[in-house]
């Protein structure tokens, strides 16, 4: 039996870091969904260490793709073959598994997006603008405030008989509305359902504004686990919503698929190897005083070797 080629997909998001390992038949072998906890480098190191122990013996990593808001960082650390934005990564993953998709709704920790697909290519997209109301971190916060485990938060909404109205436009308004309704004596399930509806309303008015939402509609991202939100989408759009099997790691999966394409073309990978990931990574930042622009430059070092620098405008430090 020949050695088996594996592909790594890394999605470093604001709230969670997802890592997947897939084989060359696009089958997901490993799936890590960890909280970023504001320390992406440590989290990546730790999960890679765990991951390397779980891989089949006769396997090797044949490609790495990074996405998410921390993609540059993750790319520098791993030696990625592909560093891609989340829109493309999510779109590619959805299209690979559900080729007839026309609309992708993705709600993650801090971003929510809509991706419009026609004839198998991404034709349009939108992301939330300034406010994070309606994204995962807000739901997370509300769940912990109500002392409900996040996993049960969405299911609770299904018990609601008379959902209350919650303002969904702004996280501060929504929270104060929820507190007010709770002090008036409304049941928790009605408030939770009200919140789900409010968030969906906000999403459709803000992110989905002016977009033609046609079926098949696919709902992915961490929030897709929330049944309350999914049901609210189905009610409001009057269509069935598909939640893909790997809904929570679609970005990472897309990155891995792109990495496979890239390495198939290039013939080799730039992956640094798991051993090098065990070395010491340091990231330091300094303010360049070369000119009055005073750019904040970030420097990533492996041991004593500088692997990446960015943040400068002029190209002096190799970034821009």
């Amino acid at each position, binding site marked *: 039996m020949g050695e088996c080629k594996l592909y790594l997909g890394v999605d470093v998001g604001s709230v969670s870091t997802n890592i997947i390992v897939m084989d060359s038949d696009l089958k997901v072998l490993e799936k890590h969904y960890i909280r970023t906890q504001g320390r992406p480098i440590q989290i990546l190191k730790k999960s890679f260490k765990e991951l390397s122990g779980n891989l089949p013996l006769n396997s090797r990593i044949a490609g790495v793709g990074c996405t998410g808001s921390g993609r540059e960082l993750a790319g520098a650390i791993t030696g990625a073959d592909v560093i891609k*934005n989340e829109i493309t990564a999510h779109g590619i993953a959805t299209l690979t598994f559900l080729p007839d998709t026309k609309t992708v709704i993705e709600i993650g920790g801090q971003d929510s997006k809509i991706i419009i697909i026609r004839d198998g290519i*991404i034709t349009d*997209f*939108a992301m939330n*603008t*300034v406010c994070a109301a309606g994204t995962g971190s807000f739901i997370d916060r509300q769940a912990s405030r109500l002392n409900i485990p996040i996993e049960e938060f969405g299911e609770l909404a299904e018990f609601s008989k008379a959902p209350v109205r919650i303002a969904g436009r702004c996280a501060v308004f929504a929270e104060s509305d929820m507190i007010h309704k709770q002090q008036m004596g409304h049941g928790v399930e009605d408030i939770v359902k009200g919140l789900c509806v409010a968030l969906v309303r906000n999403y459709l008015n803000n992110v989905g504004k002016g977009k033609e939402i046609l079926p098949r509609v696919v709902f992915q991202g961490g929030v897709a686990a929330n049944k309350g939100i999914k049901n609210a989408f189905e009610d409001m759009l009057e269509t069935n919503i598909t939640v893909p099997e790997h809904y929570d790691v679609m970005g990472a999966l897309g990155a891995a698929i792109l990495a496979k394409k890239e390495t198939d073309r290039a013939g080799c990978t730039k992956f640094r190897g798991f051993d090098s990931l065990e070395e010491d990574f340091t990231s330091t930042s300094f303010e360049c005083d070369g000119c009055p622009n*005073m750019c904040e430059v970030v420097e990533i070092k492996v041991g004593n070797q500088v692997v990446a620098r960015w943040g400068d405008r002029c*190209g002096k430090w190799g970034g821009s």
Partner: protein
Amino acid sequence: MVLTFPHMGKMYIPAKAFFEEMGIETVSPPPVTKRTLELGTKYSPELVCLPFKINLGNYIESIENGADTIIITGSCGPCRFGLYGIVQKEILKELGYDIDILILDPPREDFPKLMENLRRLGEGKDFKTVSRASRKAAPIVMMCDSLYELGIYKRAREEVKGDTDRLLNQFEMSIRHTHGADGVIKLLKEYKRRLRAIPEKKDYEPLNIGLVGEIYTLIEPYVNLHVEQKLGLLGAHVDRSISVSWWVRTHLLPDIPLRIKEKLILRRASSYLGLCIGGHAWQTIGHSINYARGGYDGIIQIMPFACMPEVVAQSILPSISHEKNIPIMTLTVDELTGDGGYNTRLEAFIETIRQQKSENRRKEKSYGRV
């Protein structure tokens, strides 16, 4: 009198040259940095739009460098900009700075006041000096914009990524040590020549992206998170609907052809928006339609958070996008300095358009064969 003015892109280059030719001592504000933003937000009303805060930061930093008189243009509304000068004056007074603000309002508003301000600015200079200085400085406005336009052209096509920016950065470093209009013109010419010499990729066809939106956020790169540079490095050619020279040519100079052209562009907007509602919302709509007609690949609207006129324009843009079949994206800027979210949006925007374009081309080809 030591004069200063707020930053707006490269406006400081011709402004500096003009006042130096006039024999008026000037202090150019240091480039907009974190500190400018911090000073500005600390002393501004929280809800005011971003340009106000940056202006105020510029003033304070200039005052620290010895300025005692500030010159700004005004407008009597209808958007918040109409109140900038007056409120900023009050704030600086409360902070205990002993400075003078000369607000140059459009002539139709209060002509005697404008003349008085200009007279104070002229400080007994005769008409000959003023006209000589204007004649010498006016071409710098155009030359400066043309240098940066060449930069946009080159950046999208440069063979070695970063060449253009390295050169433009050098230019900005040298301009600070240059004095008078002649020196500036010489430097502009030199850098234009050097910029032209940057090797380009062969047979590369960049996407054409039009930028529309609020004038200040469009022109000041610190505020728009260097959107032109980012798009350029993604390989897109950017056309900015509004520039400093555009403003000078449509407001100060008797440039009739450009004024007529602008009128026509605004007229095209009439089925969506038929009047000035403050700021540059009307231009945003007009120029978006113009870009769509001109075969551009996409449009990006940039505005400061909660900018009243641009919010109106923003809500009109989806109809234009739909009816004229052109992708339009809106970016709202505020005090953010982390640009990750913007990079993602810009990268995805460009990539989406590029894929769509090559798909269309593929289809055209296959239809051609049938």
